[in-house]
């Protein structure tokens, strides 16, 4: 229950951190909030030879608005995201979902970048990032690139980042006019990882039909799972309760393939997925209708 020894460095600039990461190769781990990394080190499931502590790099802590939406530095604490009036205004879905992540004491340390990079299939932020069509800014000493959230997640606890790369910031585009959103999850206790959850973003056209829909699940696959068939069913349709229910059924039956664990078997997870999908789609459509372009 104690971590193995490691070398510790606490750079104060991004360039220093990237060059340390490059030098260590795959032997070092970046230390963000430590709320996922340190437990695995305490259990010795992870025994990195070195930790590069990002907590002293002031440039990685920011929340700002630009012409196209919201931008958050990787080290922005989850608690700051939750409490930011800017996030509430520019990315209300993100704001609404933050309290579902762990407990306040964990969010005080945990960071947005740490959670996105960790790629836990049960985590809320990766699913939210895919639902909101977020883009990740990834850097190494030699390279810098933007990766779309849906390309960022490639498997269980696995992202498209190379060992020498680091997530520097994440950008959430403003939703187009006529959009609505919804988030919900079921957890055994508030603050626990969810048994199943989903985020939905729906955009209605001026005639009130669905122009675009995204439904993304957490905790039912190896990463965030986009319910593409359900979305296809909705596009072009008028969003009636029957259409929503049909989409939720399709999502639960055809878009996901959940495995069971001690808390919930595959059948129960499918059931939860259907119920949650119907709820979040209904919420999203209600908001989109209120926002109304027609």
């Amino acid at each position, binding site marked *: 229950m104690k971590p193995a020894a490691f070398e510790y460095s*606490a750079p104060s600039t991004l360039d220093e951190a990237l060059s340390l990461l490059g030098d260590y190769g795959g032997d070092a781990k970046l230390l963000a909030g430590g709320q996922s990394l340190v437990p695995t080190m305490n259990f010795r499931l992870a025994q990195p030879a070195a930790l590069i*502590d990002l907590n002293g790099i002031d440039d990685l802590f920011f929340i700002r608005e630009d012409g196209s939406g919201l931008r958050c530095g990787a080290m922005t604490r989850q608690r700051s995201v939750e409490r930011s009036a800017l996030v509430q205004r520019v990315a209300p879905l993100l704001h609404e979902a933050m309290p579902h992540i762990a407990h*306040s004491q964990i969010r005080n340390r945990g960071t947005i970048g740490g959670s996105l990079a960790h790629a836990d299939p049960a985590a809320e932020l990766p699913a939210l990032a895919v639902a909101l069509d977020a883009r990740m800014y990834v850097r190494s000493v030699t390279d810098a690139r933007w990766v779309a959230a849906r390309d960022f997640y490639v498997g269980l606890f696995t992202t498209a980042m190379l060992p020498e790369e680091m997530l520097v910031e994440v950008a959430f585009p403003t939703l187009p006019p006529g959009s609505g959103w919804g988030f919900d999850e079921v957890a055994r206790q508030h603050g626990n990882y969810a048994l199943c959850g989903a985020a939905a973003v729906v955009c209605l056209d001026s005639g009130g039909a669905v122009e675009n829909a995204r439904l993304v699940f957490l905790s039912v696959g190896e990463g965030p799972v986009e319910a593409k068939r359900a979305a296809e069913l909705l596009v072009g349709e008028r969003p009636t309760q029957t259409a929503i229910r049909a989409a939720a059924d399709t999502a639960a039956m055809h878009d996901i393939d959940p495995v069971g664990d001690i808390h919930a078997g595959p059948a129960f997870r499918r059931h939860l997925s259907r119920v949650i999908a119907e709820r979040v789609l209904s919420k999203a459509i209600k908001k989109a209708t209120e926002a109304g372009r027609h």
Partner: protein
Amino acid sequence: MDLTITVKVNGREYERSVEPRLLLSDFLRHEIGLTGTHVGCEHGVCGACTVLVDNEAVRSCLLFAVQTNGREVSTVEGLDAGPQQLHLIQHGFWEAHGLQCGFCTPGILMSLVPFLEQNPDPSEKEIRDLLSGNLCRCTGYQKIVEAVQLGAKLIQEKSS
């Protein structure tokens, strides 16, 4: 390689040479002898080890002591208002029987200090949301909720 750190704990500065892998919880308990901070799970789940770092409630089992170099840490030992004088939140727990074995209590108290500063008159739901971050194996939480309500009331009465 050991690193030398200076940490202010409950208002007093401590300089120690520590291994980077030393957890803040073990630093508090073993290096400076403040055993009021309890250690239950060492993976962030139980909340018994919660302390304040720069006035924010955090898990001391998920921080390395070296990360608190130059920072201010508050533990349950620093809560009392003076010798034999409990903090008003502690009074609430005393009067409303907010504890049985007491293992979870230090972590709960430390979570409550910033919580009640920011939200002096919390609803029962807000109290229960906060307490979700602290496991108690004894009380069933009902008495803890009542203790928090009483503590909040005592603080408000004193400040009015």
